[in-house]
């Protein structure tokens, strides 16, 4: 690991000020991904601005039924929060299926949003990778790409976003609150992460001087009937091959409301809007679930080792919707 200068910020303004004043600076919160990447010499910041002292570690109910999650709320706290477990079970489940208890005790909400890909070739500094070193090429295209993207990839990058939490946030229409030099703004979660296009080195639409302060969940009463399903190569402590976050409301046999997002399939958490269109207002049965899944995966493209993900994603979507429809969606 390269040496760096280290400073602690106690408030957001100072943090933003420090990051603008210093070249090649990074915010440090839980460190579970950044320190890992620094050990691998993939990230080599000259300055670390430790933001763990900022007062952003609260989960608060908002008027109108939404919830605000401070950027420094630890993943383990968030997953255990009673309001989250009752109103947004998909989020609690997604977090608990990610990483390990130790990592969830360290990782923060804001940090989880900033996770970088687990592509093998991104981690191997001897390999070509447009995300790590723009312009060098992509060794995953013709290499081992079993864990790679089937949706929204480009010829420059077929990496996936590794987060489970973000998939649930995508399904829940969360918004990300950020603060920059004198400006505060909100970014809808689906616009927070990017598709790779020809600039895969840029993971998100967050500006270099911007700090995530909180994530807001809108009131979504039917999200009480929601769940997260993660399909992976071992029973825990593995990234998703495919994951599905969904919330479903069925009234008199008809789908009144549905939210659906996929993980492990794209450079960003993938909100399945095409499937949602097919489902909304339709009769809740296995046939429509299959049709919706197929519609969403129509644009999917498999590579040498990951074509199975297309069928796996379809099957997992159907399975999750079936479960939600039978377990409490039908009211």
């Amino acid at each position: 690991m390269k040496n760096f200068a280290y400073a602690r910020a106690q408030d957001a303004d100072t943090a933003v000020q420090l990051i603008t004043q210093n070249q090649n600076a990074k915010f440090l919160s839980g460190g579970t991904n950044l320190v890992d990447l620094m050990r691998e010499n993939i990230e080599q910041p000259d300055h670390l601005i430790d933001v763990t002292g900022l007062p952003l570690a609260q989960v608060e109910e908002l008027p109108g039924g939404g919830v605000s999650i401070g950027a420094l709320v630890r993943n383990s706290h968030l997953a255990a929060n009673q309001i989250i477990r009752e109103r947004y079970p998909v989020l609690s489940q997604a977090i608990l299926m990610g990483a390990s208890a130790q990592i969830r005790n360290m990782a923060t909400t804001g940090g989880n949003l900033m996770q970088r890909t687990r592509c093998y070739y991104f981690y191997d500094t001897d390999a070509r990778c447009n995300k790590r070193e723009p312009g060098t090429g992509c060794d995953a295209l013709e290499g081992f790409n079993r864990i790679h993207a089937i949706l929204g990839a480009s010829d420059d990058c077929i990496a996936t976003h590794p987060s489970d939490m973000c998939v649930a946030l995508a399904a829940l229409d969360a918004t990300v609150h950020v603060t920059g030099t004198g400006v505060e703004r909100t970014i809808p979660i689906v616009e927070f992460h990017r598709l790779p296009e020809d600039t895969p080195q840029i993971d998100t639409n967050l500006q270099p001087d911007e700090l995530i302060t909180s994530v807001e969940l809108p009131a979504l009463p039917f999200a009480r009937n929601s769940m997260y399903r993660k399909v992976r190569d071992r029973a825990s402590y593995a990234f998703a091959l495919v994951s599905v976050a969904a919330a479903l409301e069925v009234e008199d046999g008809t789908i009144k409301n549905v939210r659906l997002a996929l993980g492990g399939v794209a450079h960003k958490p993938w909100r399945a809007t095409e499937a949602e269109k097919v489902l909304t207002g339709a009769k809740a049965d296995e046939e429509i679930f299959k049709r919706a899944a197929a519609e969403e995966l129509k644009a999917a493209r498999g590579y040498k080792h990951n074509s199975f993900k297309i069928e796996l994603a379809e099957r997992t979507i159907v399975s999750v919707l079936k479960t939600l429809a039978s377990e409490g969606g039908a009211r």
Partner: protein
Amino acid sequence: MSARIVKPGAIGQPFSRVDGRLKVTGKATFAAEYKVENVAHGALVFSQIARGKIKNIETSAARNAPGVILVLTHENAPEMKKTPVFGSDSEEMGAASSSILYLNTDEVYFNGQPVAVVVAETLEQAEHAATLVAVEYEEKQAKLILQAEKPDAVLPEHIPGEPSDLKQGDAEGALAEALYKVDNIYTTPPFNHNAIELHATLAEWSEDEKSLTVYDSTQYVIGVQEMLAKKFSLRKENVRVIGSFVGGGFGGKGNAWAHVSLTVAAAKVVKRPVKLVLSREGVHLSVGGRTPTEQRVALAANDVGKLTALIHTGFTQTTEHNNFAEQFTFPARHLYKSENIWLRQEMVHLDIVPNTFMRAPGESPGTFALESAIDELAHEMGIDPIELRARNEPDRDPVKDLPFSMRNIKEAYRVGAEMFGWSKRHAAPRTMRDGRFLIGCGVATAFYPAYQFPAAARVEIHADGTAIAQSAMHEMGMGSATAQAQNLADELGLSFEQVRFEYGDSNFPYAPVAGGSNSTISVGAAVKAACDDAKKKIHGLVGEDDASPLKGTRFDEVEFREGGIYRRDDATKGETFHAILRRFEEDKIEGEGEAAPGAESEKYSMGSYGALFCEVRVDEETGEVRVSRFLGVYDCGKIINPKTASSQWRGGITMGIGMALTEEALFDVRKGRIVNPSLAEYHLPVNLDVPNIEIHFLDIPDPLTPMGAHGVGEIGITGVAAAVANAVFNATGKRIRDLPITLDKLL
């Protein structure tokens, strides 16, 4: 249920591990943890190409990085002499993993070959500076694909001790004419041992550079000592190698890999102790694992299910500079009787990290193919797979034509079937389910030979009635030190609490590499010999002593028990070691001994066996497989310590579940690089992957081995992948012949 034999002595008792307390308090000292003053930290730079020459190596940026003391390359490294390669045909058993002269050559033989060592004040500084070393290569065409090199495959002269091509009768002919047959190709991927302790070497030279102390995470202290003495032209007795606690080995620490001598070289140059701990990536790149295999198994049977042909052939990969054959045809040599047999193993030479032995080399992938094929034949014929095995149980070793020293496979299956409830299994695939989960059950046979190698030991009986034995043996978690303490207690007639066993130090008498499940009986026999020596010496004192009630006895007229010597014919006549040594004013009596396998063992086929039962649940929607039940019934001779032995089997079975379902080193043939060199992406089984594994053992002694025992370290992994694959077939109707059985293969 078989009767359990429990002798009154220590052997057979479930003593707790002797080092347990040290391990739970953090006081067990592993190689990287010895306190040495003024230690510097090393990190390796790995080659980025698979074959070629180093044209230029630019080290100035690294040398100028903060904290850096030295960048060692082939341009400034001291000479390290060529030494015998492990398993090579030379007279002496070497420890070197290959004949590559790391840092004494500009040639690159594999991607990941260490090409420089950076030494710095802290680990992080060394690791960072290692990334600043820039190497220019003149690249050569590399051979990286097993399939492509098959035309140039070589037939090794032998695969450890056995012919590499063996024909009895006309197997192909019998196959062609057979009523029932299966004939398929099975493949297994490369695996890595991935012991949790990273490989570490800590080297300290004396000021005059004539002697050297090395703390190393090794399964072979004597081998490392001999190798380093030769490499650095030192007298062997001036090199001391210590590896008392090793955090798992599984074969990965049996050879001395590049970092061992490079750490010693770096310490010599910087004139300071140097500690080098491989990163997890470094373990995958520079420490070899298990070769992938491509195996053909063809079986033919007559109408009553007797085998008429058994063919097991195939390919593994190795390198020009190590030549290790993964003896996957060994199980087929000993498990089934067949009229016609053809076994053949070929090897291709690739430009890769030298392959090496990993838990049950050969038997582990070999049983996957053979035991899957037996299951396929049973299904084809509509015979229960246990019954099919019974019909082909040989009464003599099929290829050696020798009697078995012990063999109770049928009994193991009988007991296992009852415990597991095998009769409740549906033979037809896809007929058992629980909601969306398909359920299936499978069986397979476990097999591992019983090896004994030469070893030596010494023992001291102290005046206070305690005893210590020493041998340069190893303890990487197997329970060897505990088992030998039990052996020692019984040999001397002391209690378990009165004895101690010391190991893991090249200053102790010779012990072989901890491999091939040999330690228990190899060292066990040496301890017995040393104890006999000491006992004779003590008896020599009292047998002619007027003051002793034992005066005039012959050695065979006395017995050693309860801390002393007593007449066999009069239990009241005798005296304690304490009394004897005090009278002769001695602090201790010493004994030394050596042992090697007896001639008798040449006249028998000696192996360990097991009957494995597995139940899986397969998610029909996603193809995810989870093992839900596992039972292993073992026939491994007398079990010295049921508690530690059960753990060995469970750990082996767990590694077998990993082999079956999750583990695979991904070798990118474009550059010859392993692309998942991490524990995040090389998937060891996590605890949720492992069911409640039940263990039973027959405990029937082998009359030919010391203590009646066999080692149990390796057999645990054998057969497991087949038991899982057979259960997956029973659940889904899909036969997977290509490991690991990942969900995409079942969609």
